[in-house]
C-alpha cells in the first residue's frame, strides 16, 4: 500500500466538524468515490470528529490518501482525552434501535471498510477508519 499524501487537520472545536466534512467530501470526490461511498465516509468522519471534540477534549485528524494497488482514504482521529473504559460496550449498538445516544461508534464502523480503535483510560483514544474505492 503506497501512501500518496497525508495532511493533518485540527479537530478542536465545533466549527471544525463542518470543516472536516468539507475536506473529506473534497478529497473523496477528487479520488472518484461514488456518491454513496462519499456520503458514508463523510458521515463517519462527522461522527468521529464530534466524538473527538466532545469526549476527547479536542484532538487531530490525519488524512492519508492511499493508492496502490487499491485507492483509498484513511482517517485517523486522535485525542489525549479521558479514553473509553468499556470499548466493547461502546461498539455495540442495535440496528433498529436508533436511539442514537452514546458514541455512535458501531454506526461509524458500518459505514467504512476498515475500522480500528485504541483507547486507554486517562491517556486518550485513537480511531482509524479506511474507505476503499
Amino acid at each position: 500500500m503506497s501512501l500518496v499524501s497525508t495532511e493533518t487537520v485540527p479537530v478542536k472545536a465545533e466549527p471544525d466538524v463542518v470543516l472536516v466534512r468539507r475536506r473529506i467530501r473534497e478529497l473523496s470526490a477528487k479520488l472518484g468515490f461514488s456518491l454513496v461511498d462519499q456520503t458514508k465516509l463523510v458521515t463517519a468522519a462527522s461522527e468521529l470528529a464530534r466524538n473527538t471534540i466532545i469526549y476527547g477534549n479536542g484532538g487531530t485528524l490525519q488524512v492519508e490518501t492511499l493508492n496502490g494497488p487499491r485507492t483509498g482514504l484513511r482517517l485517523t482521529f486522535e485525542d489525549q482525552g479521558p479514553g473509553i473504559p468499556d470499548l466493547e460496550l461502546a461498539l455495540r449498538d442495535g440496528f433498529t434501535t436508533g436511539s442514537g445516544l452514546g458514541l455512535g461508534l458501531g454506526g461509524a464502523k458500518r459505514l467504512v471498510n476498515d475500522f480500528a480503535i485504541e483507547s486507554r483510560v486517562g491517556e486518550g483514544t485513537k480511531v482509524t477508519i479506511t474507505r476503499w474505492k
Partner: protein
Amino acid sequence: MEKIPILRMGDFLLVTIQVDMQDRLAMALQDDLTEMITSSEARGVLIDISSLEIVDSFIGRMLGNIAAISRVLDAQTVVVGMQPAVAITLVELGLSLPGVRTALNVDAGMDLLRGTTNGSKVS
C-alpha cells in the same frame, strides 16, 4: 451566527435546510421551531432537506426531536426530499428516525400535512 429562516404559510411552517449545519445551528433551529409552533399555533411543520448532503446522528436526532416536540404541541412534522445517498447512510448508521413522517418532495409533504392523501408513515 446565521439562523435558518422559518417561513410561515398559513397554518404551516416551512423550513428549508440548505447549509451544512454545525451542531449549534441545529440546536438553534430546534429551539426556534419550538418557539414558533407555539407562537403561531401552527398545525404542521415541513422540513425540506433536499439540499442536505449529510445527515449524521446529531442532525438525525434533531429531526426526531422536532417531530416529537411538535407532536406534543399538537402539530405534525413532515421531512421531505431526503437524498438517496443520505437515506442509505442513515440506515447503515442504524438510524430509522422513528416518529418522523416523510414525503418525497414539498408538494407531497404539504398534501400529507393538509391531510389530503394517505401518507407515508414511519412508525
